């Protein structure tokens, strides 16, 4: 797959060919995330198109780091937006993101691919992986995760942090190999 960050530089210069390559390389990721969250292929298609149009119209939204990881977060948030909009629920349910200050972390993980992330996730205990996946793909709050799993909120918070830290350690090790 071509490097997304480089393609985005060309998209900024209004290069249609780069945009086409970007679509070829990354639409499966965006569609996959939207489908996993929404379980609705038509909505996933709408979200995918809307995101790629946004990439074209405001390419400066991506600054640097791991393009696929950034795009994953965009796909997640946009799908949750679409679901809430469809349910006619106020969209300010969605937590706004505090932008990361330094991109050192994003750079460190710039070459991480899906296979490595799957491997690292599989190394987590079920107790750690479940709340993390529910949170990312379920688009629910930690309180809702606690309610659904029947586990106290404090325990859920601790497991999310421990799981993310372990995931990071595992991925950092993979990067340094």
């Amino acid at each position, binding site marked *: 797959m071509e490097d997304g960050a480089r393609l985005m530089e060309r998209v900024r210069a209004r290069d249609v060919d780069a945009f086409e390559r970007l679509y070829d390389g990354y639409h*499966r990721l965006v569609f996959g*995330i939207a489908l996993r969250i929404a379980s609705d292929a038509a909505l996933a298609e709408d979200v995918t198109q809307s995101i790629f149009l946004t990439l*074209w119209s405001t390419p400066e939204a991506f600054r640097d780091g791991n393009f696929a990881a950034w795009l994953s977060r965009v796909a997640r948030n946009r799908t949750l937006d679409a679901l809430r909009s469809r349910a006619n629920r106020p969209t300010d349910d969605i*937590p706004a993101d*505090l*932008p990361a200050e330094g991109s050192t972390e994003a750079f460190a993980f710039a070459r991480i691919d899906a296979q490595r992330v799957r491997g690292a996730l599989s190394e987590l205990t079920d107790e750690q992986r479940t709340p993390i996946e529910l949170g990312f793909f379920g688009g629910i709050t930690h309180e809702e995760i606690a309610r659904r799993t029947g586990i106290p909120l404090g325990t859920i918070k601790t497991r*999310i942090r421990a799981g993310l830290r372990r995931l990071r350690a595992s991925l950092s090790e993979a990067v340094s190999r």
Partner: protein
Amino acid sequence: MNEPRDREALLDLVAAYALGVLPPAEHAHAAAAILADPDARREYDELRATANLIGLTAEEPVDSARSARMKERLLSAVRADVAPRRAPASGVRSSALFGTMLAAAAAVVFALISVIQNFGLRSDLHDAQRRVVALQAAADTDRHAIERDRTMLADLAAGDAKRYAVAYGTVVTRGANVYLALAALPPLPRGKVYQAWTLARGATAMTPSVTFAPNQAGTTLVPLAADARATAAVAVSVEPDGGSRQPTTKPTFVQPFG
């Protein structure tokens, strides 16, 4: 002493924020902690970059017809966006103009036919339009609220924001905007609130600003209504519930702007 336990709880909160599972009510608390506490900032940066990678595991094949359909629509839109930027060649101008006129004429005919066909449905259409207008107004309100929150969070984390360390946290300015990001504020006596004050450039007396009370952890994030570019200093003091016209207690801090 609960300090280490409170610290761990704070970092757990930051991790939940990095994953994107915090309810909005806890947002300000997490954001203020991240801004005021370097350890919380580091934790957030590390775990957010990690959390963003989780989505990579969801990639899956898209059936070829759907993939081609999306691509065709997108490329049509993108090419249409690029096309007007190119200077038209003189030889094709007239045919392009003719094509445009033809398309416009077809649109008018289509619209006329539609109007005639839908004449009997006009009242339903008006009802639907009224509902659309109401929904649009509600959506606009929601969108403005989100925009406000996003602007605030973007300002707080922006590299070009000015940050002034004060007792219990940080005063942040960016452009015209001023924010107080405070953590571990002392609990207030009954019937008291914290009140912010601003001193306009050239003025000799403080102007009363908002009153606020921190959450149980002593954390709060307060946007001030003053224009930072016209403000010489901000201060916070403890005042009677409802606020005062002039500070009645020694300020918790006074921060001049450079």
